[in-house]
């Protein structure tokens, strides 16, 4: 297994004047096997990196779409341990970077050292806990470094320049930029303030940035990449496809494949 780093991927794409497409799925949604097939579909249709969610019972940063996916995954028997098995299974067919997206209680409950160690062993590149701001991240950063896992943080429109500096010093892999003032969920249009935020961050740092929350159409992807982002994270729009086609898993895969292809095309801003 020769796992690519985020740096490899972003550099390679930059040379081709492309952005990265980073689709998201909750491990085990709607069931273990189907979500593995969904990830395979992502990879076959242009995903450059993956965000894998470990479901949590009380996801306060997420909207109804992700929460429903979390509930489906938990009902299908997903646990933290199974989450790592999921990543191992994904690693059997792809080397692109994998980030784990979860909430801090899952990490704390397993034990920080154990969680990061297992994450590394299972083939994950990075971890982002949605409710772990820099203020509380000292312990996590220590174990992340110890086990060679990258720690990702978020920045939002409300993040001051001073705070941004602090976040950038701690963050590795890429910076997750929150495109909306709110929770996750598909949105009809992107805000101008998102573009301004991308420009503000770019003025402060060389770290790649990926934009998420509300990115739900190819034109959103094109817009954020054109504005200077290195990648776009698409979650709720994909999960909505699962939610709407629960009784027809073939259709889920077909639709997600087609959607990913369109999203990937939109990352090629110079074509």
């Amino acid at each position: 297994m020769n796992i690519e780093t985020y740096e490899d991927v972003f550099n390679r794409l930059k040379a081709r004047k492309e952005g990265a497409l980073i689709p998201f799925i909750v491990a085990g949604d709607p069931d273990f096997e189907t979500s593995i097939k969904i990830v395979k579909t992502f990879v076959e249709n242009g995903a450059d990196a993956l965000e894998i969610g470990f479901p949590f019972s009380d996801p306060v940063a997420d909207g109804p779409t992700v929460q429903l996916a979390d509930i489906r995954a938990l009902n299908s028997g997903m646990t933290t341990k199974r989450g790592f098995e999921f990543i191992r299974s994904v690693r059997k067919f792809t080397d692109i970077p994998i980030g784990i997206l979860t909430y801090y209680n899952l990490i704390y409950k397993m034990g920080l050292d154990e969680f990061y160690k297992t994450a590394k062993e299972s083939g994950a590149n990075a971890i982002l806990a949605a409710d772990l701001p820099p203020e509380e991240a000292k312990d996590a950063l220590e174990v992340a470094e110890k086990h060679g896992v990258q720690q990702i943080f978020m920045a939002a429109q409300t993040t001051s320049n001073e705070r941004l500096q602090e976040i950038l010093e701690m963050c590795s892999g890429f910076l997750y930029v929150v495109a909306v003032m709110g929770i996750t969920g598909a949105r009809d249009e992107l805000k101008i303030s998102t573009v301004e935020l991308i420009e503000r961050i770019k003025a402060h740092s060389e770290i790649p940035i990926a934009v998420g929350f509300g990115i739900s159409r190819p034109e959103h992807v094109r817009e954020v990449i054109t504005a200077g982002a290195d990648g776009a994270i698409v979650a709720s729009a994909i999960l909505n496809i699962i939610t709407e086609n629960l009784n027809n898993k073939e259709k889920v895969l077909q639709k997600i494949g087609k959607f990913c292809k369109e999203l990937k095309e939109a990352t090629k801003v110079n074509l």
Partner: protein
Amino acid sequence: MILDGKFGKYGGVFVPELLIPALEELERAFLKFKDDKKFNEELEYYLREFAGRPTPLYHARNLSEKLGCKIYLKREDLLHTGAHKINNTLGQGLLAKYMGKTRLIAETGAGQHGIATAVIGSLLQIPTEVYMGSEDVERQKLNVFRMELSGAKVIPVENGSKTLKDAINDAFRDWVSSADTTHYLIGSTMGPHPYPMMVKHFQKVIGKETKADILEKEGKLPDAVIACVGGGSNSMGIFSEFIDDKEVNLIGAEGGGEGLDGKHGATISAGTEGILHGSLSFVLQNDHGQIAEAHSISAGLDYPGVGPEHAFLSSEGRAEYYPVTNEEALRGFKLLSEYEGILPALESSHAVGMAEKYARKNKGKTIVINLSGRGDKDVDILAKLMGVNL
């Protein structure tokens, strides 16, 4: 943040990045206004003239005789809206006004905090929306109506267990996108910093009055102070003044539900360390870190978390926490109703039930029970349990 919001290792700010600026703004405002003369004069005016402070420390003679201890009741049940919750909502409501916020949101389980917030919204003329689990909306119809009569909008929450924890989740989600105009008025000493510290500050008045009154009446401190613990605001309010008085036993009564082998809400007694709703404390959770559903006969104790300072007091051995079962709470309810003519809230009935257990082993002691709220809101539930058709 200016302070780290920690009680030992507990507490903190475990929230999405989007909320940090809002918490920073709130912390700055709280630290500024808590010592502001005008703010405090206004708050004291409302506490006295609107809420009905100070509340009496009542010597319950009949109950004392029955239990073989000298028992005092801190009568927070006599406050406007029927519970201690009004102390905190007045404090935070006023703070929101001083901060220029134009909208209040709150979560509620039993409805007491929702009503207290709705009333403050009306008093201060700030539009108010209250998140409430749809199951609680069903259980507490009268309280929903009371909130609506005060002009508040009640938003039923259909997610998860449809109870208090899910109402909190949705209130947080709302606040993530509305913090520039909205103050989230959290009802207990829980949540991310600065809430545990701030809510304690606004509830300290209970402990201050109690201490002054007991010293005047008894010439000494009590042997024990007993209060119920859900999120932990009434207990923290009364404990706060006695924490340094090591000779006073501080005892928290948790929602023991059907007993620790069955469904319950006894977070410190039977929970484990975890992160829920913005702070590290004790939570009810499974082996994988998924939050469990809590259960108590009283909706106010039906919460799988607890304020982080309680976790700290417990870990230091400064306060003790025990589960009080539904059955024991009901016995507490009956005791107080029959011996003193006071109907306690089901939450407070847990403190009375705990006092009965304590008195059995500690005859002749002086006990203060924090009677955090009155039981009018619970008569429907009680009638059903007793098979009475109202």
